[in-house]
């Protein structure tokens, strides 16, 4: 191809003829090309890690500021599916590593089998991810403002009054109880030290001149939480869902146990939706990488079946393998961060 092409492989090349078809004209030899490819891949992987690194920092800052949201939110994730996915991904990483080893030995049939298995792993991961996402979407455990759109989405749970127990529901929500709650709150507030007698008490916090203000009152924070971005209709739906606040488990025989949607849970921490926001962001970005990985593996499989690789040229398989491992490693961090702790 060029005068500089002094590839020692030329002499005993059994797959190619005059020159190596994979070799660019600007390389001196395929070793140089391979090393450059590998260096490029590692650089790319470092950018991937930094990309996820940003999200991990966001996770860390968020969790440090609001640990209760994460403790509360993680109970909505199913460790079984998460664990299964971890196993699937680890196995697929193993088959990918085997594919690289076999290609170094030139056993291209075994490479193809391993790639198919890896592809199954990628597909399996996405199927399980689909099951999990589908479940979350069905239950209304959605990121951001969509979290507030279907407060009644938890279909396994019914409000008491819909089960024909209106009286019970009414009792549960009696004004007495609400008053008691407020009285307790007032009690708490009155325990704060009294203001100096000579000072005029300034009850307004400076921020309260804003649209909703930021006060310590949980109720106010909840309202500001909603007001921040929700359309008025939805705010009305949530705010007027008073009778929905108390739920009873639907004990029909074939119903599984489900957790109530956080909006139906008066004990939920403020901004519980943030857990699902970052969950969907991080696993979603990871899912995109799995899909890209699947496409890459498919491409590698096609090239393998066409006989493009041999023991002295399998750079794409090697680099594809590196990429697939990094996808795996990121999941290894995501799984405990969301499901376990």
């Amino acid at each position, binding site marked *: *191809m*060029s*005068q*500089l092409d002094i590839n020692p492989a030329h002499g005993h090349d059994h797959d190619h003829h005059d020159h190596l078809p994979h070799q*660019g*004209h*600007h390389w001196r030899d395929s070793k*140089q090309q391979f*090393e*450059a490819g590998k*260096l*490029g891949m590692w*650089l*790319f992987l*470092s*950018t*991937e890690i*930094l*990309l*996820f*690194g*940003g*999200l991990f*920092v*966001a996770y860390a*800052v*968020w969790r440090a*500021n*609001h640990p209760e*949201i994460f403790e509360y939110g993680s109970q909505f994730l199913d460790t079984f599916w998460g664990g299964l996915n971890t196993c699937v991904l680890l196995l697929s990483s193993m088959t990918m590593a085997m594919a690289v080893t076999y290609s170094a030995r030139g056993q291209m049939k075994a490479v193809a089998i391993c790639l198919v298995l890896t592809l199954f792993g990628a597909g399996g991961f996405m199927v399980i991810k689909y099951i999990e996402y589908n479940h979350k979407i069905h239950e209304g455990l959605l*990121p*951001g*403002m*969509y979290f507030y759109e279907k407060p009644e989405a938890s279909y396994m749970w019914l409000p008491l009054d819909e089960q024909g127990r209106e009286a019970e529901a009414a009792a549960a929500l009696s004004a007495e109880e609400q008053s008691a709650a407020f009285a307790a709150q007032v009690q708490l507030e009155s325990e704060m030290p009294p203001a100096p007698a000579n000072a005029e008490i300034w009850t307004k916090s400076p921020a309260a001149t804003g649209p*909703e203000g*930021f006060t310590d009152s949980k109720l106010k924070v909840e309202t*500001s*939480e909603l*007001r*921040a*971005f*929700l359309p008025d209709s939805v705010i009305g739906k949530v705010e007027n869902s008073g009778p929905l606040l108390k739920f009873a488990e639907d004990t029909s025989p074939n119903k599984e146990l489900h957790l109530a949607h956080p909006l139906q849970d008066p004990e939920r921490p*403020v*901004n519980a*939706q*943030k857990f699902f*926001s*970052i969950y969907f*962001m991080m696993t979603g*970005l990871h899912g995109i990488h799995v899909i890209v990985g699947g496409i890459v593996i498919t491409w590698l499989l096609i090239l393998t079946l066409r006989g493009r690789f041999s023991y002295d040229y399998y750079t794409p398989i090697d680099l594809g393998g590196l990429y697939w491992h990094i996808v795996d490693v990121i999941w290894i961090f995501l799984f405990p961060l969301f499901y376990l702790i």
Partner: protein
Amino acid sequence: MLLRPQEKVADMTTLEAGTHERPKLVEDNYLTHTTGLKSWLLTVDHKRIGLMYLVSVLGAFFMGGVFALLVRTQLLTPEGTIMGQDQYNQAFTLHGAIMVFLVIIPSVPASLGNFILPIMLGAKDVAFPRLNLFSYYLWIIGALFFVMAMFTGGLDTGWTFYTPYSTDTNSAMGGVIPALTGAFILGFASIFTGMNFLVTIHRLRPPGMTWFRMPLFPWSIYATSVIQVLATPVLGITLALLVVERAFGIGIFNPALGGDPVLYQHFFWFYSHPAVYIMILPAMGVISELISVHSHRHIFGYSFIAWSSIAIAVFSFLVWGHHMFTSGQSGLVSVIFSAITFSVAIPSAVKIFNWLATMYKGTISWNTPMLYGMGFLFIFTIGGLTGLHLGTLATDVHLHDTYFVVAHFHYVMMGSALLAFIGGIHHWWPKMTGKMYNENAGRFAWFLVFVGFNVTFLSQFMLGSQGMPRRYATYPEDAGFQIYHMISTYGSYVMGLGFVVTAIYLVASLFSGRKAPANPWGGRSLEWQCASPPPWDNFAEQPVVGDCYDFTVLEWSEKEQGYVWRSDIPHPDGSPAAESEGSH
């Protein structure tokens, strides 16, 4: 590879008449090697991609410049002259966003770097030519997203996209998400370019070119690429978070949802401060070449200049907090960031002194690239010294977010980075196009640009220290700001005129310029050893690497109208022992 080696086809085109004596054959260079639109749009040749980048970046520069002139015209009077508040906010936002993301960041690395770097290394191409083309198209797509932002409600967040303004749909205009998407895509264009250069420099250096025999331009590109690869992904994810925040209301930066708007500033500046060095480092590399070649003098303190580039790249990751001294971050954090910020001043100062020392006892040609080089030394010194005022905690509190900051970063970004880019264009114009531009027109335009620039931005230092806040469409009448604004605006018109003149004579040179010799300035790095314009594969044979800053072996040839190897010194090609002549 899309380009197949093929024998050149005769009479594809005819060359403009020149004064030289060469036979009027059709030359086989990278411009004529293949023809047709497709051969350009799908090219993987680094030179063509570099040229396409150059044209695109200059197009964006024109747009950004028009917005700049609009902004300056608006500020002629306290109540504003031509725009309403919202229009002004859009104008300065688009000026900033276009200049930063579309112009300065890709300017030197993606256009000049793409063209020159592989040739300087004696390589036939960058390491990953298809990735190179891909990042060019990413740039185009990113630019289209910015255009889309203008037509989907406009963009008025400032180029920094500060939260919660940018994520609040009641505040910022509708173009935020397209603009963020555009910046995200441009970020990846920048990452891929950086990766490509890193691998190219690591793996494609020719035998004999050790790290410390590389020209300084590749060193600075190397330092830049490290920053591009390590910092830009963080910007990517930050912008992605902003998009999600604005679209879904996830609340990571929204205080109403327990988020932290200052966290965004940390994320943003973690990229965007290093990005400042993405802009200035390649410019410094260009200046190292311009000063040494046009002084015909071996660069002084090679290793100090090389290491100072690396030092700047390393420190650049540790100083982002100096953009946030008044943001309410803790005092201790501010003190630490201030201390590290000053450490960046040292390698910059070292470079300035080394460039000056390079001129000592040189033979300085007063041609346009050298004028840009000397202008850079003057302007960058002002930019660097005023950085001291801003890095100092007590004075930064007063100066932050005033025109003092505006003037400072224009001295660094515009007067230094962009004018070095323009100087680099002049320096490598004969190599890229094969034509010489009109030298006197070049000197005249440089004078306009240099004077216009300093008039525009020197006055803004006083404006800022007197208290004029930035991003103001109007300003109080009685604060004494108007006179400075008027000086600044008139200066910007002179500078704009200078750029128009530059564009005219450069374009004219394409049609009527003298044929450029292989080595018009007397450079020693490898790009001056191949023809102008270079053949499609740069070097038929691996070039011999010598000391790229030893100019004593060259002499002017009237016949070539350029520099050639001295007749009284044996060429290293003939006698390998003679290569030692290059080392001191």
